[in-house]
Structure formats: C-alpha cells, structure tokens
C-alpha cells in the first residue's frame, strides 16, 4: 500500500532552539503541530501558544457529582431506607457523612479526570500513531528536541514548511505512514475493544465473587471468624450454668415494647372489657388492617372472615367471624384472641405488632358491618 505523508519534522539539539522553533511555528499560524522533548521544558506551553487545558472542568464536575451524589445517598440511607438510631443522634447526622462525601468527591474527581484524559485527550483505545517507531521518535526520546507539523493542517504546504523549519536551524525530515497499519477513526466502539472490556468486567466480577464469598471462608483467611467470643447457641465456660446466651436482667423491657398483662387462660370477653382500642377507624388504619388480615388471618379464616379456610382440611376450619358471639364481643376480646391465641389458633403477638393487631380488629369490624349492614348503611 502506498505511503502517505503525515508530517514534516525537524530535530534540534538544544532546548533553547526548540522554544524558538515552537514560537516561530506558532507565529506562522500553524495549529496542528506538536513538540517532543525527552524531558519537560518550562515555558514550552507559552511558546507553542497552548491554551489552558479544559480538563479542570471535568475534575470540578466529577467532584460536584461525587459530593452531591454521596451526601444524598448517605442521607437517603440514614433517613429513608434504613433509619437507625446510632449513639442517640438524629437520623440525619450530617457530620458523619462528611468523610465519605469528601472521599467520594475526591475519588470521582480523580477517576473522572484520568478517564477523560485517556478517552478524550489520548483517544484511547487508538494506540498507534504515525510517529511511533520512527527515527524521529527515537531521537526525541533520547537526547534531541523535535517539532512535527502535520500535513492535515489547513495552512500546510510542504515547501513552505520545510523552508520555515530550516530557517529555525532544524534538521528537516518527513514522516510517512501507511493506512494499512493505522487508523485515525475512534475505536471506542470497536467490537474487539468492547469484547475485551466485557471480558475484563466478567473476570473481575468472578474474581471478586470468589474472593469475598469463598476464599475468605477458607482457612487461614477466616481468622476474623475465629474469635474467642461467645456465639449464639454455644456453651460458655465462664458462667456457672454453662449458658452462653444470657437472659436479660429481670424486668428488662425492650424499647417500645409494652408487656401484655393477660395470659392464655383468661377468657376473651372478660379481659376484653379492659382493653381499649387506641385506633380510630381511619382509612390508613383500615388499609393497614386489611393488609395484615390478608397476610396473617385469611389463610385460615378466609378472605372475608367466613371461616372458609384455604388450608383444604389440613387444619381445623375456624368458626366464622360473623357470628353473634364475635360481633358482640368488645374490640379487646378479638385483640386478646390474636395476642394469646385460642385453642388451636396460635398466638400472633410476636409476628404482629400491637398497633397492627388493633388495625386488624378495626378491619374485622368493617367486614362484620359489611355482612350485616343496617338499613341506614344502604341509603
């Protein structure tokens, strides 16, 4: 394949010459040229007429996205998604979010800057360049200083350029390339490159999965799990009775828990009188009651409380909840039944919170009313 002209280059042997040459090329109005030196030379940017890089804006944008994103995420987790009281502090304790916000801002700024630099400025994944492996490049990466004016510059005219570079005292030469080996098209979406990226992503994920889920559980990496501490359900030699799990101090009550005063034996309608329903039959309370009724009660009592169990005879069918007995019960009696159970019906006090139990009671009342509507309800 035929060779194409890439650029006219010139080699100089000292840094002052290259600065002067750069200024001359700049003043002659060329835009597409580059300087190559074996080490950084101060003042070259000015001589080449380079503008301040825009990369800083990428850094700024990435840092702002990182900071704003992290503070929102931390706030969402701490306030909305998983609110937990930590050290008696409010859910939204912003000082605790500062370190991670700062770190994510720095991290994104760094990754964004490097990513933008590689993708936009270095044109990755295009990894070949006409100047690679040329005698010119060999010299300028050892002890010479070079300038190369590209043939695709708007003002390019081979004779004029050669003349200009010769006048600045350079050793002029030309760089050719063959299109067979080189492409200037961006290769970011080249299937081969995409395939490679996907492969790397898969390999890293698989490695990460194996490491965190398998390797860390093998000896000797599981040393964090081998601690001299009492684990649930194990013995302890420390206590005389040998129990590892200790009972709470007598009279301990969990946060927000109100102990239930009546035992299984108590008759529902007699203790029910002493329990007062704290919930009004609001829409919110009824919705909650409906939801919980469907979840916990309907498998046995049927969707409408008629005792038509879906258990298909695997469990004794419960009586209907629309009987006169249950309808005339005080609210507290139904609450008591849910709380401690009745004969074969188990207790639900650990599955269903107090408030939810009262909401269910309200919902049952609504069902009962629906099946035994008064004349006035229909008007």
């Amino acid at each position, binding site marked *: 394949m035929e060779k194409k002209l890439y650029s006219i280059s010139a080699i100089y042997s000292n840094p002052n010459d290259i600065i002067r040459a750069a200024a001359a090329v700049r003043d002659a109005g060329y835009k597409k040229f580059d300087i190559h030196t074996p080490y950084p030379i101060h003042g070259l940017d000015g001589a080449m007429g380079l503008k301040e890089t825009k990369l*800083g804006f990428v850094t700024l944008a990435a840092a702002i996205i990182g900071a704003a994103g992290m503070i929102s995420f931390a706030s969402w987790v701490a306030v909305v998604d998983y609110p937990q009281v930590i*050290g008696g502090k409010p859910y939204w304790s912003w*000082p*605790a979010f500062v*370190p991670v916000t700062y770190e994510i801002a720095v991290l994104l700024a760094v990754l964004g800057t490097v990513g933008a630099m590689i993708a936009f400025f270095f044109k990755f994944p295009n990894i070949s360049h006409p100047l690679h492996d040329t005698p010119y490049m060999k010299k300028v990466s050892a002890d010479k200083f070079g300038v190369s004016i590209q043939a695709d510059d708007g003002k390019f005219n081979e004779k004029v350029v050669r003349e200009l570079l010769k006048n600045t005292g350079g050793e002029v030469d030309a760089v050719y390339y063959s299109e067979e080996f080189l492409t200037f098209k961006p290769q970011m979406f080249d299937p081969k490159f995409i395939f490679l990226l996907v492969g790397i992503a898969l390999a890293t994920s698989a490695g990460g999965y194996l490491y965190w889920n398998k390797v860390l559980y093998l000896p000797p990496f599981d040393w964090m799990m081998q601690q001299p501490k009492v684990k649930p359900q194990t013995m302890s030699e420390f206590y005389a009775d040998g129990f590892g799990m200790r009972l709470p101090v007598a009279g301990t009550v969990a946060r927000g828990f109100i102990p239930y005063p009546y035992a299984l034996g108590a008759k529902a309608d007699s203790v029910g009188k002493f329990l007062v329903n704290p919930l009004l039959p609001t829409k919110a309370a009824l919705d909650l009651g409906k939801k919980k009724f469907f979840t916990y009660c309907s498998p046995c009592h049927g969707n409408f409380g008629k005792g038509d169990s879906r258990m298909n005879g695997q469990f004794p069918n419960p009586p209907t909840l629309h009987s006169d007995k249950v309808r005339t019960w005080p609210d507290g009696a139904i609450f008591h039944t849910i709380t401690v159970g009745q004969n074969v019906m188990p207790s639900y006090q650990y599955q269903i919170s107090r408030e939810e139990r009262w909401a269910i009671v309200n919902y049952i009342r609504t069902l009962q009313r629906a099946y035994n509507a008064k004349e006035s309800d229909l008007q």
Partner: protein
Amino acid sequence: MSAHESIIIPKKELPANIVKLGWALTVIGLVLVVLSYVTDAQRAGFNNIIGFTFLASVAVGAVFFIAIEYIAGAVWSTPFRRVLEFLGMLLVPVVLLAIPIFLNFHSLYHWSHADVVAADKVLQSKSPYLNEQFFAIRFVIYIVIWSLFYFIFRHNSLKQDKDNDQARTKKNIGLAAAFIPLLAISISLFSIDWLMSLEPHWFSTMFGVYYFTGSIVTALAVTTYFVVLLSERGYFFKGINENHYYSFGALLFGLLSFWAYIAFSQFMLIWYANLPEENFWFITRWQNGWEYVSVAIVLFHFWIPYFMLVSRPSKMKPRVLKQSAAILIAAHFLDMYWLVMPTYSASPVFSYYEIAFPILSIGLIIVVFAMQAKKYNLVPVGDPKLQRGIDFHL
C-alpha cells in the same frame, strides 16, 4: 535573562508609610495593653494569651518553613526565604509577651491553685505534668529549641550573602532534618500547655496538630502578604511572576484545607463519641453566642479563602492572594479568641481589651520586619538556589 541582570535588589528600606504604620500600631497597642491591665488584669491576661499564641504561631511557623525549604530542596521559595528569616525574629517579642502572663498566672490557669488541685482527683493525677515549675521549664526548653535552630539557620543564611559558601546550605539541610521532629513535639506540647490547659479537664489528642496547622497557615499568610505587598512596590527582584504567586496560592490553599481537615476531624471524633469528659468543650462553644464565633471561624478560616483560591487563575492574582492572606490572619486571631475566651466568659465579649493585642501583634510584626529589612538583604543573594528560584517556572 542573564543571572546578573535579574538579581537586582533595588530597594532595601521598607516604604516609610508602612514603617510608620507599624510603629503607630505598636504604640497604640501598647497603650491599650497597659490600659487593659490597669482596668481588668484577668481579662487582659486572657487576651494576652491570645496575642502571645498568635505571635508564636507566626514566629514558629516561619522557622518551620525555613526548615522545610532546606530539607525539601524547594527552589521557588528561595528568593523569599529572607521574609521568613525576618519573621522568625518575632521569637523575641513572643518571650516578652509571656512575662505578663506569668505574672498573672493564677487568675488565668485554674490548675495552678494548690487548693483546687487538692480537691480534684483528675487534676491531682495530671499534676506531675501540670505544675508551675515544670510548665516554666518546658517553656524555656521550647524557646531554646526554636531560637537555637532559628539563629543558626539565619546565621548561615546571612553569612552566605557575603561568602557564597555552598556548604552553609548543606549544613542547614542537616539541621532542618534534626529540627523538624523537635518542632513537631515542642509545638504540640506548647499548645497543650498554653491553650489546652486553660480547660485542664479537657483533652484532645488532635489539639497539637490543630494549633500547628493553624500556625503554619498563619505564618504563610503573613509571608504571602509581605511578599505581594513588597513585590508590587518593586522590592525583591525583577521577574517575580505568576509562577511564584501561584506557588504561594497553591501552598496556602493546600494548608488551609489541611487545617479544615484537622479541625473537622477533631470536632467529628468528639461529636461522634459524645463522651461527657470531652464534649463539654464543644458544647460551651456552641451556646450563648459562641456558636456565631464558631461558624465565623468555619467561614473565614476555611470556606471563604477556599473559594477565593480554588481556581488556578485566582492563585496567581496578587490581589486575591493579599485578600485571602489577610482573611486568614484575622481568622487565626479569631481562632485563638475562640480557644481562649470561653474560659473567661460564658458568652463572647468584645471591647478594647480584645483589640489591644491584635493591634500590638500586627504592629510588632511590621516593626520587627522593618528593622530587619533595614539591616539585611531582602533576598538571600548568596544562596546557590537563588537564580533557579528567580527563573522558577511551573
């Protein structure tokens, strides 16, 4: 540009109006200080601690930067090292300012009363460290360490002006290596002695670093201010340019961020653990009006100068540098006020007591600098790194 062309030090004596201003401030400051001591010795004493620790920040911070410049082989700052060497002379007024504090010791430092200590278990167990004799001995040790190294650095640097002896730079590099760890320990203990022990029950392991970072920010701010002010009027040398300014701006920016990092870390750890023996110190500073001072420090010691200096072009603008340096200097005064005064008063107080020492300190900085500048070169003309520093390019 040849070497000889550029090292022209055209003027030596500072502009007369600056010198006059320095003397005027010093005299006014002294009058106010005397008035303060006559009317309310205790309040004057607390303010004396503010002025004293502020000047110590500038003096010790300056010596620190001299050492850092030698040990890091920094080049861009060599032409300005004399500014630091002049500012180190403030160690003399620092010692003088300590005298009235010692004279009023009992009304300032709670732990210096034998009967208080006898009734207090915590103070008793701290008393092997916190007692007046050892306190005084330690102060002498700090001053000896700081001034010893300062005067040797300075001596070598000034001598080099005449004999151009490169070995002197070598010597100073070795000394700097020895000095930096000593400085780290001495300035931490100094801040614990003079500032933290005002509240003898309180402790924070970050306090030393907090004072140290505040000090170097302040010393750099004072240096930056002088450099910009003087070079705008044609001092130093021809060719001071945005590369030098940028270096000042970037260092100032980095250090003030470092200060914020340390200040926030100290706050966050105490806030998080929320232990009563630690948190009361911040609680005191978050009520009865002190919260405004606290917020002002966060703004003036960090956010405002941070945004002033964050962009690259602004770090090169002499005007921005001067303004942010001035803000940081004022913020350090406020910081010392915030560290000291809650011990004196439950809510912020402000009157001529509080301005006496800032005026005196600023006056002293200018006067000491001017007296030095009169006698010695403003630029270390014999330093082998000087030409590279002048030609410095980012």
